[in-house]
């Protein structure tokens, strides 16, 4: 590897009202390396890279770009310096096609400004194909799944010919296969001399793709190491400053009565779904993207219509026509996409947590702020939500802390059928364990959990039973003792 230093950040500080996000942080990037940025939720990782991309202005400190001191004024400036970024929260125009998004603002056009769509889609398709993913450049972004959108972002960043490419949790929404493709692309970029700043909470993958790692804690610089010089537990103790006992604190409880049963449930995405769920059980659902996992959750929650089949709750046949009805029946649904479906971003932490629960906490339509405050305070401390206060707008929280807010919404709803779609997406290792422990507590109290996840270790670590979906059908059903990675993958691929 080449040791040329392309970028140096020295004594960088950044404060927001009520928050010091970065405090005297140093960072250095070599040519052609993959440099991991690691830290707990709210440690300041996204803030650091947003300073690089021109989205935020640093409060103090210096940035050297190829040893020249540089002030990065705005995103356009960063782009011209050759810095490309894929933000943690996707930033695509959903009404436009994948190709149009990739070339947004740089559309190939003739002298009159008429866009050459043939060229645009042709080049976009080439970029997408280079990533070895199956997306039609002409499809509208709103019709793509989260992972596909993620890949469009990658293609967009690559099309900018960036010399420094920043990826803020690019794999949090990807399946194993897609991660492999992404890593292959990253390696190709490395060979071309592109430097990559890579943020992720999936510790395993860091060893696969990273060269060096810099750890932040509470906005402070902890240290930088070559990845081969550290172990996973070294990293964890650098991040959280304490030992972490178990990654998956699975507890088994007596399986109780049947709480939910689906019989032959079908709609345009689902075919003949049959299964039952019992109190005290965590039912894992695996499957590739587009296999119908999320659609299944939406159907149970009354958000999508059901064409055929029946849903029984506590043995009673129920027709669930709306999420409101589902919530009344004791169902909670943590959506996979926190930004578009989970949060009202310009409302506060408290208002978001309380939104599904106001019926319980109000009399004659007047909300009891005492109850709201109590519940909010409880979950802020139980899940360690890092926020200057419960009235902070959720848009100002870090990604992982936003996820914890969405989680809290449903934890305090007293639902006893909880559907968690990618519950730990973007959540740091320490907090994951806390969430798993909360899941244990919920099932101990007699609730039942359906956990949809693309992280197989998490499914294998926490479920009592695993269903695998493929093309809208259930293609595998394993008690946890019989489940393993290989079997699940087989069923997920439908072979």
């Amino acid at each position: 590897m080449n040791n040329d230093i392309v970028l140096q950040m020295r004594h960088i500080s950044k404060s927001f009202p009520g928050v010091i996000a970065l405090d005297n942080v140093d960072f250095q990037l070599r040519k052609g390396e993959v440099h991991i940025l690691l830290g707990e939720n709210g440690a300041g990782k996204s803030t650091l890279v947003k300073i690089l991309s021109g989205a935020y202005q640093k409060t103090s400190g210096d940035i050297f770009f190829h040893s020249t001191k540089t002030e990065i004024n705005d995103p356009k400036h960063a782009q011209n310096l050759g810095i490309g970024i894929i933000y943690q929260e996707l930033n695509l125009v959903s009404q436009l096609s994948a190709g149009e998004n990739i070339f947004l603002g740089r559309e190939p056009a003739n002298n009159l400004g008429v866009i050459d769509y043939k060229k645009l889609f042709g080049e976009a398709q080439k970029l997408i194909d280079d990533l070895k993913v199956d997306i039609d450049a002409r499809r509208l972004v709103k019709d793509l799944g989260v992972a596909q959108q993620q890949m469009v972002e990658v293609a967009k960043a690559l099309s900018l010919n960036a010399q420094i490419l920043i990826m803020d949790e690019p794999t949090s929404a990807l399946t194993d296969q897609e991660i492999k493709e992404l890593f292959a692309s990253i390696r190709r970029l490395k060979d071309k001399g592109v430097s990559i700043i890579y943020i992720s909470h999936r510790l395993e993958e860091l060893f696969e793709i990273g060269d060096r790692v810099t750890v932040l804690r509470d906005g402070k610089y902890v240290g930088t190491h070559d990845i081969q010089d550290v172990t996973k537990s070294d990293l964890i103790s650098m991040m959280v400053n304490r030992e972490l006992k178990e990654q998956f604190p699975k507890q088994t409880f007596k399986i109780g009565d049947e709480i939910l049963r689906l019989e032959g449930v079908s709609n345009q995405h689902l075919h003949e779904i049959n299964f039952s769920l019992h109190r005290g059980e965590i039912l894992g659902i695996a499957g590739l993207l587009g296999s119908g996992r999320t659609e299944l959750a939406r159907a149970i929650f009354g958000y999508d219509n059901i064409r055929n089949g029946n849903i029984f709750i506590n043995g009673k046949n129920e027709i669930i026509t709306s999420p409101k009805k589902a919530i009344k029946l004791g169902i909670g649904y943590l959506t996979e996409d926190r930004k578009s479906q989970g949060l009202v971003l310009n409302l506060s932490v408290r208002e978001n947590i309380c939104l599904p629960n106001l019926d319980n906490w109000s009399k004659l339509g007047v909300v009891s702020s005492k109850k709201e405050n109590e519940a909010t305070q409880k979950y802020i401390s139980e899940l360690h939500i890092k926020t200057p206060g419960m009235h902070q707008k959720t848009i100002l929280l870090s990604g992982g802390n936003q996820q914890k807010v969405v989680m809290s919404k449903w934890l305090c709803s007293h639902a006893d059928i909880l559907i968690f779609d990618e519950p730990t997406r973007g959540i740091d290792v320490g907090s994951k364990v806390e969430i798993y422990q909360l899941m244990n507590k919920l099932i101990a109290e007699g609730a039942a959990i359906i956990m949809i996840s693309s992280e197989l270790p998490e499914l294998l670590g926490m479920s009592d039973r695993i269903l695998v979906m493929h093309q809208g059908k259930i293609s595998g059903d394993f008690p946890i003792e019989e489940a393993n990675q290989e079997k699940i993958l087989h069923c997920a691929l439908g072979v």
Partner: protein
Amino acid sequence: MDQKEFFLHHGRQFGTLLGLLILCIVLWILSPYFLTVSNLLNIAQQTSINAIIAVGMTFVIITAGIDLSVGSILAFSGVVLASILRIGLPLPLAIFAGLGVGMVCGLLNGLLITYGKLPPFISTLGMMSVARGAALLYSSGRPISGFSGSLRFLATGEILYIPTPVVIMIVVYLIAHFILTRTKFGRYTYAIGGNEEASVLSGVNVKLNKAMVYGICGMLSGLAAVILTARLNSAQPIAGIMYELDAIAATVIGGTSLMGGEGTIFGTLIGAFIMGVLRNGLNLLGVSSFIQQIVIGSVIIIAVLVDMALKRQKQ
């Protein structure tokens, strides 16, 4: 909420309030008559109608909607109210009918928007024309007047030395503030404007809530019609033209975001007063009505520009 947080969240309102104060001081320097009790009461009275309509507009805009039909609904409510009074039916019944007409028109907007899935701009644009036509048709295009004096109290009467329209306005604001900040319905209003899909998925009955928001907006137009009719002692089918723009302006100057999900009821009150004070001041100074229009339009634009600049700075 501690003090710092309080300022963090209400800073925007202090900014507008400061703007209003500066405006008042400037006018006071330019015209000594400005700061007399009678002039201030006069301003409050004249502002009350726009201020009341703007409350409904604030609800609507917080849901990321818009209501262009408030002025026409006001006219329609007014002529219905006046016609009932003229045939000698009791005042409460007439008021009830006036508010009812407004509410029904508003709910119709709401239903078209939610169940009919029409964009608010279109459905209220249609209603703007329909209600205006209905008012003209109902009154045969002529003002309705000549009813007993009982209604006059609502315009010229005083409660504890405060003119009745101002009292009504204050009551409406207190209730609206309570609804927006303390009730489920208020919370849902913000949530729907902030993220409709997330609201549905949190169990909010978005359609019902939205329809009610438009219903309230219509009803408040009806209330404004009551006051206006009382003040003029007659109802004009061509009343309330361009009122929607004044209400939108008050709301937006008051810090409510047209993107939805953000806004406060007291911000709107300040916004309405900025508009009212400005009109009054320009009249006192003898500025021609042509120039007035230019000044008022510019103030709206500047207010929103400053607001957006401040918001960006906060980042």
